């Protein structure tokens, strides 16, 4: 399948098998399509803090941060990761937004701060699962295996100078590994060989989506976009209103004071019919929202989804109806993560 200009593996051995491997052993993901920007200069951190909603200024060297980046009207330009190195920052963005994000940042970059697109010089592989540490032991510095969640270090990985980051999008323990694509073949085959005794499976975009959805993680373009605010999306924990001014702050202050009219909720269904992106959500027959993501959750063995509904209907346990077009499914609002037995560090 082509995705954002990349030929992407959607499926290797099968969605469920790949998903289960990540929950019970380990999976290897090629996510090199993600974009990486390098930000340098003495004012780089302060500027990034004006561009994103979470607090870059609180990052220690060797720490990463998840944050929305918003427009003045609080619509989300993208959700991204900010890595603080000792002399610069790396910003990791969604592939589909790479051009838009770079333009957006370039429009706002002040004198004294440099912004460079390093995406073509950066490959990204993820090893995720409870046995990710076993797969990597002996192949990266011991210090990397001791990293806490959302911490990173640099070191050698099968001969490649790499950023070794204890992050992921699956809810399981694991690493995201950044390095120059000239080493991609050596690192890929090294990881495949190292993973063999530990049940490492190759994982495509299909299982990546079921894994993130069982955790209730956002997918840009589905659950969040230029028209949704972080507060509507339940990302209030990433919005640091007290840190000083940033793009979208005025609108978010007002949304916080007055409340938002719609909220992103998670919901589960009985049976095996699956909610899908774009289906209408109703309450007692009245349209109240729309499904943004849905799947059958292989680890939960039931259908689940997320969508925006009127704020009054966002409470856990609220009954909703999902209209598939041919039938109506009963759903109820459920706290996220849907899957709470993951091994990721917190």
């Amino acid at each position, binding site marked *: 399948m082509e995705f954002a200009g990349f030929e992407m593996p959607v499926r290797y051995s*099968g*969605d469920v098998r790949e998903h289960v491997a990540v929950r019970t052993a380990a999976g290897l993901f090629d996510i090199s399509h993600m974009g990486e920007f390098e930000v340098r200069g003495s004012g780089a951190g302060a500027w990034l803090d004006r561009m994103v909603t979470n607090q870059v200024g609180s990052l220690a060297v060797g720490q990463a941060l998840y944050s929305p980046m918003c427009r003045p009207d609080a619509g989300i330009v993208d959700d991204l990761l900010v890595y603080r190195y000792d002399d610069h920052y790396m910003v990791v963005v969604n592939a589909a937004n790479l051009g838009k994000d770079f333009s957006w940042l370039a429009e706002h970059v002040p004198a004294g701060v440099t912004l460079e697109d390093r995406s073509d010089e950066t490959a990204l592989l993820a090893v995720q699962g409870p046995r990710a540490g076993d797969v990597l032991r002996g192949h990266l510095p011991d210090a990397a295996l001791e990293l806490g969640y959302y911490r990173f270090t640099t070191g050698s990985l099968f001969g490649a100078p790499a950023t070794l980051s204890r992050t992921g999008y699956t809810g399981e323990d694991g690493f995201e590994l950044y390095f120059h694509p000239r080493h991609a073949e050596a690192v890929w085959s090294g990881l495949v060989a190292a993973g063999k005794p530990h049940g490492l499976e190759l994982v495509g975009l*299909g299982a990546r989506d079921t894994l993130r959805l069982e955790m209730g993680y956002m997918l840009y373009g589905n659950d969040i976009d230029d028209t949704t605010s972080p507060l509507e999306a339940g990302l209030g924990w990433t919005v640091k209103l007290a840190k000083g001014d940033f793009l979208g702050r005025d609108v978010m202050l007002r949304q916080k004071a007055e409340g938002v009219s719609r909220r992103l909720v998670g919901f589960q269904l009985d*049976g*095996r*019919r*699956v909610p899908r992106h774009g289906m209408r959500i109703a309450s007692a027959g009245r349209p109240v929202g729309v499904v943004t993501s849905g799947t*059958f959750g292989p680890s939960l063995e039931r259908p689940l989804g997320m969508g925006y509904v009127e704020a009054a209907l966002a409470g856990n346990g609220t009954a909703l109806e999902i209209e598939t077009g041919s039938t109506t499914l009963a759903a109820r609002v459920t706290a996220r993560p849907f899957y709470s037995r993951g091994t990721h560090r917190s």
Partner: protein
Amino acid sequence: MTFPDDVRYASTHEWAREQDGLVTVGITGYATDQLGDVVFVDLPAVGRKLAAGDKFGEIEAVKTVSDLYVPVAGEVVEVNTGLGDDPAAVNRDPYGAGWMLRLKPSEREAVKALLTSAAYAQVVAEAHP
């Protein structure tokens, strides 16, 4: 990918097998590959009369949902209730345990007008140039 010769095919990726005056219908191995892991098959009530090309149900996979069409006209005389507990049979054995329904066909030998395995292989090949 090879397609068995003992069934006939529709370009919508169903197969039909005529035996003892009844027509068994399922979906092809190509269709199951495209769908991925099947989690639910919505089948019609026994007794329902269907025209050729009518939608008879829906199939839910983890990643997608698809409509199901009958390749020939007839009355539903049996559905594969085993798929309720084991929808994965459609992936595992699409031409056997993964069968979906049996029809009493409105016209004798209607199955013979459907695509042969070679013709269906051509349809699949054209979908993936």
